[in-house]
């Protein structure tokens, strides 16, 4: 709600009552009554010494508040202080499992672990054309001949591929088509008799500083 500026000017003492138009005089009289009532209220002052007491309290509060260094030291003490912690054994087991799993993954450096930054290893791309295959896996001496490294054919053109981190040296491997058919890599640079009537493909990886 906005006040008429002429009424505001009268309240501010800038114009006299008579200067107001007739239409505003009733409202101006109402304001005069309200102001008279306010003036009739008893005066309230600050309690003796109140300001001083308030300032003292503020200063005391500021002095009692710890500095950032104190907070840091207190945090360190809290961390260092031995205290009993109640943890369900299952939670401990889960945490241990996570740590062991991560450790085993790192230590084994699973060749199928495509995301790992394989230190001392070289990523090798394996590719085979197997049109019509439902699945193609890779097995070799680098994964205990377990056909667990699955190759993918995202564009469904029958060319399957996958990337594996291998240690320096010579590795023997084969592709496993649809989980049953063991097939050598026709594009390998060399093959060797596997002793079971098949040929293993060979891949050679030089040391990182020499490749």
């Amino acid at each position, binding site marked *: 709600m906005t006040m008429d500026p002429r009424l505001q000017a009268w309240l501010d003492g800038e114009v006299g009552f008579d200067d107001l138009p007739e239409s505003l005089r009733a409202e101006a009289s109402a304001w005069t009554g309200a102001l008279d009532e306010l003036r009739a209220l008893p005066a309230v002052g600050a309690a003796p010494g109140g300001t001083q007491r308030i300032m003292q309290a503020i200063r005391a509060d500021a002095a009692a508040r710890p500095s950032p260094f104190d907070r840091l030291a207190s945090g360190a003490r809290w961390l260092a202080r031995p205290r009993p912690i109640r943890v369900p*054994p*299952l939670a*401990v*087991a*889960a945490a*241990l*499992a996570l740590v*062991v*799993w991560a450790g*085993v993954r790192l*230590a*084994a450096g699973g060749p199928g672990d495509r995301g790992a930054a394989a230190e001392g290893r*070289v990523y090798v791309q394996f590719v085979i054309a197997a049109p019509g295959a439902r699945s193609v896996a890779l*097995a070799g*001496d680098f994964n*205990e*001949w*377990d*056909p667990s490294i699955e190759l993918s054919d995202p564009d469904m053109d029958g060319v399957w591929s996958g990337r594996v981190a291998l240690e*320096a*040296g*010579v590795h023997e491997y*084969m592709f496993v088509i649809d989980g049953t058919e*063991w097939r050598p890599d026709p594009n390998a*640079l*060399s093959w*060797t*008799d*596997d*002793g*079971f009537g*098949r040929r293993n493909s*060979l*891949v*050679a*990886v*030089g*040391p990182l500083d*020499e*490749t």
Partner: protein
Amino acid sequence: MTAWRRPAWRWLPVSILTVLLLLPADARPQQRLDERLAPETVERLRGIAARAERAGVPPELLRRKAIEGVSKGVTGARLERALEDYARRLVAARELAGPDAGPDVLAAAAEATEAGVPPDRIRAFLRANPNPVRSTVGLRVLGDLQNLGVPPGEAARGVNAALDRGLRGERLLAVSAAVRRRVAVGEDPSAALRAEVDVGRAPADGRRPLDRPRRN
């Protein structure tokens, strides 16, 4: 309920879970052997590995070969025969490679022997190339070249020349692949190898190229 409240019992699930988690890392391949082979076959394979171990062959090599066979569906007497044969070759390779050779070098030496590379050539090659990674790849290439009909002396000189020129890993293995392609179109094996590694040409740093020990 009272027993469960004892601290020792409370940690039982932790222990069980931890053991279960640790198992797959080592036990899975062995599990494959135990599941797919008759106990007596497993026992005989252990016997083969133990005999080979007494001759200085790491049992790990034979265990790995057994797992490979089982993964490929080979079982029973056929697996045993293959393992016996492999163990025999590894024992011979141990004599050639000496007591310090690691499992990979041993396996590569066994393959080279099988390919028909003369023992003295293998021994000389290993002396000249003590680096296990280089010698492992080199021995495989030596075996390949032998199979392709390159005379052993020339093959050894060719591989040493390739190593001198800095060929490692896949690039070294590519030498035998290239020779194979040339031989397939009727080229003489020795000439094909010479063409690939340019045997006799001095390497860029002017070192003497052939048949000399390398510091690895």
